[in-house]
Structure formats: structure tokens, C-alpha cells
């Protein structure tokens, strides 16, 4: 339960590996990962690789988790406002919970999120480290 199909992961690979979001062709508002209708009303979008720099809006340390992540606790999770605009939810890695604060500068790194046991796929994604 909870393990994504490798095919679903493959569809989302550019979002998950390259921090690719979308940009509205009309008003240039950026989204991560995407929407169907822009707040300006336009339905025309182009892919846009977002730069992985941002600041923490809120954060927490997870101590009890789901099936997929229960062996990884404790780990830090944060809402991060990217300098490019969109807000993303991601783990903060290589840091102590005590070092985190609202407003802290962070930057993106490519890491493993979880593995499907010993036989299944390895699911990589974007985490953040203190900048």
C-alpha cells in the first residue's frame, strides 16, 4: 500500500528529478507542479524548470510515519517558497531539526526518497539542504 507504480513515477520524473513546473504563457505565473487553469483564466502552459533556491515558510520533524517512511524517522519536512514563486513541500536533509527556522534559505539536492523493499524500484526526488 502506498508504493507508487513505477509507471506513475516515470510520468512525474521531470517534476520530481528536475524541479520542472509550468509557466502560464499569458501572465508568466509559475506553478509547481502544474494546474489546468491559470488564475488569470488562461489554459496555455509551457514547461519551466524552476531554480532550486527558496526559503522555509514552515517546517516540522516527523517522528511517526507511514509504511513507506517509518524506518527513516526522524526526518524534517518543510513548506518552501521557491524564489521563482511556487511553494513546494519537501524534506530537508543533512540538517538537524534545531537548525531550522522560518525564513531560512535552502537549496535543492537530488536524493533518494524511498525504495520499494529490496527488489523494487528506487524512488528519487528533490530534497533541500540549508544554503
Amino acid at each position, binding site marked *: *500500500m*502506498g508504493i*507508487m507504480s513505477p509507471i*506513475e513515477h516515470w510520468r*512525474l520524473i521531470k517534476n*520530481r528529478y528536475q524541479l520542472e513546473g509550468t509557466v502560464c504563457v499569458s501572465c508568466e505565473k509559475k506553478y*509547481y*507542479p502544474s494546474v489546468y487553469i491559470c488564475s488569470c483564466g488562461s489554459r496555455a502552459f509551457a514547461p519551466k524548470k524552476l531554480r532550486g533556491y527558496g526559503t522555509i*515558510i*514552515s*517546517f*516540522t*520533524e*516527523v*517522528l*511517526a*510515519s*507511514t*509504511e*513507506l*517512511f*517509518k524506518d*527513516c524517522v526522524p*526526518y524534517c*519536512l*518543510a*513548506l518552501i517558497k521557491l524564489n521563482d514563486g*511556487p*511553494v*513546494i*513541500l*519537501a*524534506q530537508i536533509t543533512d540538517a538537524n*531539526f534545531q537548525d531550522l527556522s*522560518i525564513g531560512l534559505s535552502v537549496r535543492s539536492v537530488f536524493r533518494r*526518497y*524511498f525504495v520499494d523493499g529490496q527488489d523494487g524500484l528506487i*524512488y528519487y*526526488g528533490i*530534497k533541500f539542504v540549508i544554503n
Partner: protein
Amino acid sequence: MKIAVIGTASTAYGEWWDKSLRQLLAESQLTALTDAGLAPQEIQAIFVANMCAGQLSSQVNIGALATNILGLHIPGTRIEGACASGGLALRAGIAAIESGRADVVMVSGVEKMSDVSHAQGTQSLMSATCYETEGFVGATFPALFALVTRAYMHRFGITREHLAMVSVKNHKNGALNPRAHFRKEITIQDVLQSSYVADPLTLLDCSPMSDGAATVIISTPEFAKKIGKLNVSIIGSGQASDTLALSQRETFTEFKATQHAAQNAFMIAGVTHKDIDLVEVHDAFTMAEIIALEDLGFFEHGQAGHATVAGKTSLQSNLPVNASGGLKAKGHPVGATGIGQVVELTEQLHGRCGARQVHNARIGLAHSMGGLGSTVTVHILAQDV
């Protein structure tokens, strides 16, 4: 709007090792029939609220399960909106009656959480969020609420003690409720010292996973009058939605869907906040109760925590919140929760709540929330005069 509530029933909430999903559902359905004094054949449609049975019990198509229990071939429909499934099922039942499709409708909710591990339950509840972005990165429901909590505390300056007071109050009320999952009073220190689930939320800031079922039978006022059961009616109902993903919100310290749903319900009911005598809110977490009271319009943003500490939402106050013990102490069998709130309000308006009876309870409000306020319903019930 005037939808009569003519029968109610709820199982106790807790860990029911010896009762399955269908046994819990059956118990609440049959007890509600008895409460209403009706034969099964008089029910014309059933709506059943449930979130996790597909994942945890490998059972969907629960609408049919519910009609099977009564031995009927009437329409049976499962309704899902995560933890707001109960509120949504009630709205479906109301719509069936208002449209003239049915005169007498049974609305049930049921959930069976204890057959799987806590980690598996947590995994299943994550399907209420934007799973492919939030589940993928290791979010849990408590973690998402912890992010909201920290943002709220940063903005309004309240402390963990304010949050803890919600839990203390609800446990105190739950101790008076024979159906509650937890019937033990706790202290602020107990909350502060319990282990962290997702900082700053501790175990005692979080509602439990529970098994349970609840049922209400609703009808047209004419039918209720005919059987001498026109005592309590639903007079207002509202529903709204918001983004699945927390990261897509415009604000992290309010839930707009609650605000919109409440506005709709009040408008339909034709009452104001001052008319409300008691409130059952969806306190999945202590923070959720505080934000809900503000979004429902009972307190200004940033004030509900102070109001709780000042005792303004206690059983003895002018606005008792979660007299039942709330999700925190009464328990949270997901699909049943929203229906259970209506059972509680109905019993309060009947004056049948014993030690936890709210005095002069004439109009009550129930708030049911799915995800992080991505699906919200608000219902207002009143005594018939």
C-alpha cells in the same frame, strides 16, 4: 431547509477487535431503526460514508453492503470525501429528500481502522491529501497539520499550552460520554510531555484512529409529523472545497473551505452565530479546533486559542465546543465521524445527554473536514417548536 432527524444511533468508538466493518455498520443501522420506530421497508435510500475500507478491508461498493444488511433492494450509495465523508453523505441524503426522490433516507458512516498497523493506517489516511506530491515526500497527516500549526503559532504568537487546553477540555467532556474512545481526563502537562508525532504536535494533540459506526434517519417534516417524531431538524447545510495539496494554498493559517461552507449553512438556516448554542467541530488535531472556530466565524483570527484557555468553549460556557469529547476524546472512525456529530447534536437537542448535557440546547452546528480543509461541510440543526 427543514429536514427532520427521526432516528439516531452510534456504536461506542474505540478498538473493536471482535467487530468487523459490516458488524459495526449493521449495529448502528439496526439501532437507528429501533430509535425511529421504523421497519426496514420504510427506508427508501441509504447513503454510507466511508474512507478507508477499499484500502484496509479490500471492500468498496459499500452502498450495496448497507442495503444488504437491511435485506432491501433500494438505492445504496457510498459517499467519500476523506474525513468529511459523513458530512457529505448527509448532504447527499438531504438532497435526495429536497429533490423529492425520497421521503425517508438512512445516512450511515462506518470505519474500521484497527485491523492494520498504525503505520498502515497513517499511510491510508494520506490518500486524503495530494498523494503524488505530499505522500511521495514522506508527509503524514500530523506532519501537514504540524506545518499549519507552526505557521499559525509564528503568525499569532500562541503557544503549545493554548493547543493543549483544547485536548484537556475535550478529554474532560469525553470522560462524561459513555461512547467515547477515551474516557480519562488529562492535564496540560500530560499533553506537553507526551511524545512528539510531528513537532510541535504530540500524541495528545492528535485524534486517535478508531473503529465505529453511526447512523441517522432523516425524512420530510410531513413524514416525521405523521409518526410523531418532528422534534429536531436540519435547517442549514453548506459545503465547499479547496486544493488537495497544502503547498497550493494562498494561506496556511485559515481554511477557506470552512469559511465558505459556514457562510452557506448560516444563510440557508437564517440564523446567526449568536443563535448557536453548541458546536461539534472536526478537531483532528488541537490546532484544527482553534482554526475551525475562527473559520466558522465564532472568533477573530488568532483569538480562538485564547478563548479556549479562558474557558469560553467549555461545557459550562455560552458556546460549548465538542461537548461529546470531539474527535480527540470521543474518537475518529473516519466515515462515521461526521454522522456521529449529528447524532450528538440531535441527542443534545433532545436533552438526552446526561452529565454532558448542554443547558438550553436549541440550535447546534456540526463541522466536518476532509484532508486539510479540502472538503468541508457545515450543518445546522434546531429543535422544532
